């Protein structure tokens, strides 16, 4: 039997039930009391008909955009919130690392806060008393444990928080995006500890934006989208799917960005051409031309044109501008024309990209016009970006033998 089970779980939130007028509060109260329906516009479905089983010992990473329902899942698991419909079942003790140092009081010492935090997580006083020592040691705070935590750095704060939770003996551990704080060495310590806990057979649920920690730690991944489990499988499969999603999302968003920033200048289009000057949307590594067509309604002094090539997940792969090494200085532009960037070779790996162009003043930190081009493709087989990297590096390999294997 699975250790965590979601059976057709939906969760509805009502929006704006406070901070609104007395009248609508009163109306809501009336509706609540009469068990009536709540008007649709005040309702948000954070989860919809989620079916999910997690077996003991699994280490599951949950990924998804903000508002996809990840945190709601954790809230339902930790019984902080209850499903609107359906059932959430968990077996065994559960501890949550949902916010490191939740419930710490700044005026109290580290030791007092260990007691408080432990008690909030459901420990008995005697249990906590036994754990103070190992917690302090893990957090490396021996010298400061009787200092009020308001004097702690944010790193110390996070260390103490993690140290407390990692000591709680639980079958299920929930972790929500908490490892982004703290210094690198402590982060590693936390990750090692998580691995160890997983090895002990504990079930771990990790919610994060960081695809790397999912591929490197988890045995299974879930992608949430609009309150549903969009994809469920091995970390690699799910992350690939997530990347595609991010891409689509980013693309549809960037289409909204067709805005002209000032009235004196407009970028009319961005064109991709082969080195021979043929318009194209598929280029190869030999190179390409990017033309930024502008229309200046008034003379624009000392313009600088910047072109950024972005991968579809938004990553800026390179940025070139007319003020760069090969300076192109124009005293002014007026009327219609174009800037042309000639890229004699293209070291981007095969993938989909867009060019984004801005025209700005050389001296003023002011963007006069901005435009997003269409998608173009660098020819070749498109592999997952996490495998191929961003650019192609020219390389000369060699191999040498330093010592021969001993003869038998």
């Amino acid at each position: 039997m699975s250790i965590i089970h979601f059976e057709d779980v939906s969760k509805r939130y009502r929006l704006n039930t406070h901070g609104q007028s007395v009248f609508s509060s009163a109306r809501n109260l009336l509706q609540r009391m009469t068990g009536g329906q709540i008007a649709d516009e005040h309702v948000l479905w954070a989860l919809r008909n989620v079916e999910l089983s997690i077996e003991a010992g699994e280490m599951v990473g949950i990924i998804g955009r903000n508002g996809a329902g990840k945190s709601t899942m954790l809230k339902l698991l930790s019984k902080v919130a209850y499903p609107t419909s359906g059932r959430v079942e968990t077996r065994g003790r559960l501890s949550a690392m949902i916010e490191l140092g939740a419930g710490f009081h700044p005026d109290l010492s580290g030791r007092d806060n260990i007691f408080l935090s432990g008690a909030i997580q459901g420990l008995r006083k005697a249990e906590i008393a036994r754990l103070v020592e190992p917690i302090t040691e893990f957090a490396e705070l021996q010298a400061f444990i009787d200092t009020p935590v308001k004097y702690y750095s944010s790193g110390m704060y996070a260390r103490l928080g993690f140290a407390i939770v990692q000591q709680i003996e639980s079958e299920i551990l929930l972790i929500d995006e908490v490892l982004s704080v703290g210094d690198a060495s402590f982060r590693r310590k936390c990750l090692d500890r998580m691995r160890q806990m997983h090895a002990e057979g504990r079930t771990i649920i990790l919610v994060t934006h960081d695809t790397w920690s999912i591929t490197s730690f988890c045995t299974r991944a879930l992608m949430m989208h609009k309150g549903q489990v969009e994809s469920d499988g091995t970390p690699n499969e799910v992350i690939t799917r997530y990347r595609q999603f991010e891409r689509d999302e980013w693309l549809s968003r960037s289409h909204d960005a067709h805005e002209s920033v000032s009235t004196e200048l407009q970028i009319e289009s961005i064109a991709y051409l082969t080195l021979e000057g043929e318009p194209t949307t598929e280029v190869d590594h030999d190179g390409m031309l990017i033309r930024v067509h502008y229309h200046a309604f008034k003379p624009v002094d000392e313009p600088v044109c910047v072109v950024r090539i972005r991968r579809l997940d938004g990553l800026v792969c390179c940025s070139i501008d007319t003020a760069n090494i090969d300076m192109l200085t124009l005293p002014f532009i007026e009327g219609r024309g174009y800037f042309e960037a000639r890229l004699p070779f293209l070291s981007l790996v095969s993938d989909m990209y867009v060019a984004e162009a801005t025209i700005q003043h050389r001296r003023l930190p002011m963007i006069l016009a901005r435009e997003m081009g269409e998608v173009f493709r660098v020819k070749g087989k498109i592999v997952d970006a996490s495998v191929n990297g961003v650019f192609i590096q020219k390389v000369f390999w060699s191999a040498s033998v330093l010592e021969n294997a001993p003869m038998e």
Partner: protein
Amino acid sequence: MTTYLRELVNARDLLWIWVQRELKVRYTTSYFGILWVVLQPLAVLAIFTFVFSVLLRVPTQGVAYPIWLFCGLSAWTFFNNTLNNAAGALTGNMNLVKKVYFPREIFPIGALIVNTVDYAIATLIFGVMLFIDPAPFYSTLILYPLIFVIQLCLTLGLSLFLSSFIVFFRDVRFILPLMLQMLMYLSPVFYPIDQVPGNLLPFYLLNPVAVILDSFRRVALYGLPPRWGYLTYAALVSLLVLWVGYLYFKRSEREFVDQI
């Protein structure tokens, strides 16, 4: 109901640690610390004695005004402060409520206990006053704890109700001080209950707080038994308030988080 209570009993260590936290924060972060528990009511007592005894000459039937006032005032202060603290007990700790599950009544009950500590100290001062006062100790004083228990039930019930109600209706924050002020003037805190016209008294004593304050004074200062009929009524109201308040709290508990 029994499951709720069992859960609460299981969380007793947390309740205890939470109360300790609140007390520590209260008394270790200010310079005079726990001295404030004594200083504050004494200061209030001094100013009120001046206004009501010296200027307005409120009649107290032979009992020294400071003692007479302190008896009612400390009881009222406990009621007033507990409700004020309980009102913010949940909304002020939402970051915790949203993150971890534990019985949420820890917060209002914690507020009650913290204020009870203050009240206990005030009662100690009151005891010292009675001791210094030449008037004898009355045997009716034995009923004092009973009245206190009734007051505790009423205060806790209202605290539970208020703390959760306010999560859904934040406006209560603004209404509460007004309500408490009205209630204070409708209770015999600064004036003796004999000032209330006889034909209004039955209505006046519908307010359980008035009954409780009056009972305290009767048993401690005048050697009279409480008005049993009204005290029984007040006790029943208090128990009802406690029961309804707790049920309301547990019913709405599941929705606290969704409101944020």
